[in-house]
């Protein structure tokens, strides 16, 4: 495949141990590649090192063995071309939703010096993002005035405001009800289609992975490594109805079987 010639993210035989020489070996011999513009999903048993993988790619952790290359550069410090969103929305309660979304711009080198002069332009951009996720007019509300699902939408806006090339999502929809989750799947799907951003999504929800991703990585139990890589064959744009088709359910079933086996093997 063409994108494998110049992947945006390339993890090569990575070992990562927490807490010194005798600490927990979280991932071992982990290798994966994500092409530019691709939507990748990572699934695997709980505690297998998925969040660790996220932190390795963003440069929050530096591996003891192997290498992580993002956008052609070896990762040795946090990479600023990424946006991150976690299961816990981590909105700052003393800032309005809009100011929360603008927060990355106060940090990222490229924007922080421009922010004051071009405030109006950035605010407009934030409001456009809010509209995209269905939060139009909620910018002036404080996060604690929003429901969990709304906070998670705002969280997505914050991850996107500085136009990252790479979006890392760690179970961002885990705490939401089924309907809100499906709605946000569509939001993410459309963002991916419209902006050409590369997305890595960690999830426990196999239907979510199958519905959204181009490619699914199945990880082994801890110490995590990639057991299997699936290319998701369904054509885009995908509609929610896809989930009631047989091919879709077969794929979910297969993934389920693989993870169940990985758990037993541990």
């Amino acid at each position, binding site marked *: 495949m063409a994108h494998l010639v110049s992947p945006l993210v390339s993890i090569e035989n990575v070992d990562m141990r927490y807490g010194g020489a005798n600490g927990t070996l979280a991932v071992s011999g982990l290798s994966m590649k994500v092409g530019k513009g691709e939507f990748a999903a990572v699934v695997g048993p709980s505690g297998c090192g998925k969040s660790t993988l996220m932190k390795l790619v963003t440069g929050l952790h530096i591996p003891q063995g192997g290498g992580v290359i993002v956008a052609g550069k070896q990762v040795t410090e946090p990479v600023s071309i990424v946006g991150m969103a976690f299961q816990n929305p*981590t909105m700052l309660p003393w800032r309005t939703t809009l100011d929360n979304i603008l927060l990355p711009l106060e940090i990222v080198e490229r924007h922080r010096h421009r922010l004051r002069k071009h405030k109006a332009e950035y605010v407009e951009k934030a409001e456009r993002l809010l509209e995209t996720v269905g939060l139009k007019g909620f910018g002036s509300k*404080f996060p604690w005035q929003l429901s969990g699902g709304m906070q998670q939408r705002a969280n997505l806006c914050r991850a996107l405001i500085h136009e990252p090339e790479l979006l890392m999502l760690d179970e961002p929809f885990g705490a939401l009800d089924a309907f809100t989750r499906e709605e946000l799947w569509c939001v993410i799907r459309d963002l991916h289609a419209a902006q050409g951003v590369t997305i890595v999504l960690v999830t426990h929800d196999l239907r979510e992975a199958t519905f959204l991703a181009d490619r699914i990585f199945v990880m082994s139990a801890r110490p995590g490594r990639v057991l299997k890589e699936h290319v998701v064959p369904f054509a885009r744009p995908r509609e929610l109805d896809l989930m009631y088709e047989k091919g879709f359910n077969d794929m979910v079933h297969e993934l389920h079987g693989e993870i169940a086996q990985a758990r037993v093997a541990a």
Partner: protein
Amino acid sequence: MSIAAENAAATPAKPLARINWVALAPWLYTIGLFVLWELLVIALEMPPTILPAPSRVFQAILQYWSPIWKNSLQTLYTTTLGFAIAVVAGLGIGLFIGWSKTIYAGLYPLMIGFNAIPKVALVPILVIWFGIGTIPAVLTAFLISFFPIVVNVATGLATIEPETEDVLRALGARKMDIMLKVGIPRSMPYFFGSLKIAITLAFVGSVVSETVASNYGLGNMMSSAQSQFNVPLVFAGLLMLAVEGIAMYALMAWIEKRMTGWAHRSTMAQ
């Protein structure tokens, strides 16, 4: 904050005819206490040299109003000055300690040890250094009240959620960015909360120091009244202290509410 204003405006909208017992309760209980006290003194025929009745205490307040007023102001002055220094130093040291895990780990036991020393025991040393009077009172108020501020500010900084920190660090945030954008705003509720504790402690410090090492202040006034067996005046001094303490506490509580309304709101929402 507009939310706070909205809230305050909403309260009197209730029907006026209904008595708001909750708002009245503090006054009723205070009056009740004085009445009980008065009755107890009458019933037990207490001589005023042991337990003066409140009526006798109020009488003493009127009788000695000029010295009471002067000494109250002096105590208020030493207390607030010591407290103000404690706020500045406590905030500074708290931020310094909370800055890094190493500093936190290294200085925390020292702080605990320092806090375990009864500050009264330091008054003689302060007197040797600065002589008797205002300075040891201010310094004792400072020493006794700055610890809770330090601990609270440092705790606020040290308990930043790792996920919040990760989100910012992944964007290339430096330590300074994280402190300014998250650490300091986050520790503000802890800081303002600690002011209420600190101000009451500051009164303890200044009065203790005035009692043993000063010619001014309510502490000194009470100890000289006591040596003249003027017990009503001693109680008048205590009453003034209580009034000052309540007033300053209320002020701190009000400031806390004004500055960190979001903290009350956000925990309520959860």
